C-alpha cells in the first residue's frame, strides 16, 4: 500500500511515517504543500492521503477540493489543529474521509488510519 503525506512540517511527516512504519506501510511519498502534492499525483496513485490543513502555497482544504475533481475515492485523512475543529463540516463536504486533531498520540493516528481504510474497503 502506498501512502502520501502532505505536510509542510518535516517533523510531522517523520512522526506520521513512524506510525505508518509500525503499521507495516513503508511505501511513503511526501509533499510539503498542496501544489507539490498535485504535481506528484499526476504520476502517482497512492492508496491513502494524509493532508495537513495549514500549509503555505495551497492549504489542505484547497488541495482536497482540487484533488476530488479528478479522484472521488482515494481516502483522505485531514490532520488539523484544534483551531480548525470548527471547520470539520466544510472539510467533509469537500471530500475528507476522516480527521485527526493535533496533538495526537501514535495510537490515535494508527486507529484513524485503520478505520479509514476499513471504511473505504467496506464501501
Amino acid at each position, binding site marked *: 500500500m502506498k501512502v502520501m503525506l502532505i505536510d509542510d*512540517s*518535516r*517533523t*510531522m511527516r*517523520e*512522526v506520521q511515517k*513512524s506510525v505508518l512504519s509500525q503499521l507495516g506501510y513503508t511505501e511513503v511519498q511526501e509533499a510539503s504543500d498542496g501544489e507539490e502534492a498535485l504535481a506528484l499525483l499526476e504520476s502517482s496513485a497512492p492508496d491513502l492521503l494524509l493532508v495537513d490543513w*495549514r500549509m503555505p502555497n495551497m492549504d489542505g482544504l484547497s488541495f482536497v477540493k482540487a484533488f476530488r475533481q479528478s479522484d472521488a475515492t482515494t481516502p483522505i485523512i485531514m490532520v488539523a*489543529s*484544534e*483551531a*480548525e*475543529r470548527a471547520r470539520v463540516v466544510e472539510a467533509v463536504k469537500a471530500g475528507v474521509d476522516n480527521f485527526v486533531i*493535533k*496533538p*495526537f*498520540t501514535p495510537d490515535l493516528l494508527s486507529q484513524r488510519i485503520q478505520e479509514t481504510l476499513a471504511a473505504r474497503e467496506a464501501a
Partner: protein
Amino acid sequence: MDIMRISPFIQGVEHVLETMLQLPVEVRDPRWLDAGAAAHGVSVVAELGGDCQGSVCLGFESETAERMVALLTGRESASDSPDCADALCELLEMVCGSARSWLPDLVVAASIPTSECGANPMTARALNGAPVVVIPCVTDCGPFQIELLLEDGAEVADRDERSACAGA
C-alpha cells in the same frame, strides 16, 4: 493582562507535550519578565491577534530543545538546525491551537511560529513597556519557559498612547 487568559496557554503546553512526547510538565510559579533577562538557547514565538493580542514564546536551553526534538522525531538534531526549529515551531502551533480551544468565547488568531537561536525575543517587548509573564516549566528533558504577552485592544491602545505622550 487578563490572568484568566494565561491558563489556556499553560494547559496547551501540558497537553501538547504530554500527548506528542509523553512528557509530563511541572509548572512553577509565574513571574514578570525582566527586560535584562538572559537569552535562551532556542526560542519559538507566535504573534497573537483578535481578542487576545500579544505574543507567546517558548524559550529552551539548547540541550532541552535537542532532547525534546529527539523524543518527538526519533532522531538527533542540533538546537540551531532547521529540523529543530521546524519541530519546536510545530509544537508551539499546536499549543496555540489547544489554547484557542480553551478560550471558546474569544476570537484568537495565531501567526505561524518563527524560531530564533541565542536570543530572547520577548525582552524587546518588555523593554517597550509591555508586561510579559514568565512561567518556568521543568521536564525530564530539562527546563524551559513559557513567556506570554497578552493584552486586549484597549490595553494596547492605552500603552501606545502613553508611549506617544512620552515621546512628544
